[in-house]
């Protein structure tokens, strides 16, 4: 995807990462944690312009859950509150055993999409989310069996090699869809040239989603729009609206990026258009 795709006016898919699993209400009390809160947040994000919601599950006290039943409760709430939004489950899980990582894929119906972390990622001072090739292949195999579209999460440039390696090992349905992630730590440093470089190193025909953590969310979303990609925003990745001011909601972050897209003349994709673009 290129600036020509932007000029061609391809619709922009906005993914709202509503809750996450790393921080919670201790970071921003407006972050939804319970199934009912997540369901209402999904509806508001969809109304604001999000076509996809990226979901994690939590225990009642906000802590991480990988249980299929908990994802089912959340999906049920999203479908009850939202209209037609695409549901995307996380399969991430620092420190969690491999078998737990498969559980979010086993709801009924299966999620239309699920994340697939493309390699290792450091957390805190002593943890690494390993995401070995064996684990990636096993998760992809279950996604293939269940008809789930993988969203390839590229945390740094080495993971671009892993995307190519995955395509050599396994057959992925077109179009390949990769989220390019920028921030501190193990992530690709958040510099505009690094986004351009990552896009240039994607497989031929791949679509990309743009994710900047923290203060980089809006600038990288804007660049993603201009480079013909898609964007992810939400409280999982950024709890602030601007410096020193907590975001009021996921919808507030979606509304802002919709305004940017509209000012730049890029149509925002409906869930139906997103399904066509992603081949769901």
């Amino acid at each position, binding site marked *: 995807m290129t600036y020509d795709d932007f000029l061609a006016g391809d619709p922009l898919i906005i993914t709202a990462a509503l809750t996450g699993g790393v921080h*919670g209400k*201790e970071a921003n009390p407006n972050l939804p944690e319970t199934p009912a809160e997540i369901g209402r947040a999904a509806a508001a994000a969809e109304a604001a312009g999000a076509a996809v919601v990226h979901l994690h599950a939590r225990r009642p006290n*906000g*802590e991480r859950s990988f249980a299929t039943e908990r994802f089912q409760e959340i999906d049920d709430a999203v479908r009850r509150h939202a209209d037609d939004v695409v549901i995307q489950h996380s399969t991430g899980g*620092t420190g969690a055993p491999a078998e737990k990582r498969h559980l979010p894929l086993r709801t009924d119906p299966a999620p239309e999409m699920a994340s697939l972390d493309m390699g290792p990622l450091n957390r805190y*001072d*002593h*943890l690494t989310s390993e995401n070995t090739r064996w684990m990636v292949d096993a998760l992809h195999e279950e996604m293939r069996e269940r008809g789930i579209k993988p969203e390839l999460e590229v945390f740094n440039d080495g993971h671009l090699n892993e995307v190519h390696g995955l395509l050599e090992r396994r057959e992925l349905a077109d179009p390949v869809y990769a989220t390019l992630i920028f921030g501190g730590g193990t992530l690709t440093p958040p510099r505009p040239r690094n986004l351009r470089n990552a896009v240039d190193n994607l497989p031929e025909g791949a679509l990309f989603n743009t994710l900047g953590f923290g203060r980089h969310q809006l600038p990288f979303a804007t660049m993603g729009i201009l480079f013909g990609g898609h964007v992810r925003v939400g409280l999982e990745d950024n709890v602030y609206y601007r410096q020193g001011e907590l975001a009021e909601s996921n919808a507030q972050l979606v509304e802002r990026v919709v305004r940017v897209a509209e000012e730049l003349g890029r149509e925002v994709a409906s869930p139906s258009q997103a399904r066509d673009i992603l081949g769901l």
Partner: protein
Amino acid sequence: MTCPFLDYRDSAGDRTFDTARAYCTAAERFVQPMRADVCNDRYDLDHASDCEIFLAHEDELDEAEIGSEVPTEGPDA
């Protein structure tokens, strides 16, 4: 065995929550949900080797506290 610095609280300072959350008495703050898995030694995680806060404050514990189990683990999903 859970971290001896772990407590579950529904309020601290000016912060209040509907459900008690993981609170680190060493750092004196509510901890991130992902870190709470380390505090609770869930999966293969171990606070004694995986938590930099515990390691920085370990010498503040007396012998009776080291190795004691704190029955405050949060509810299961």
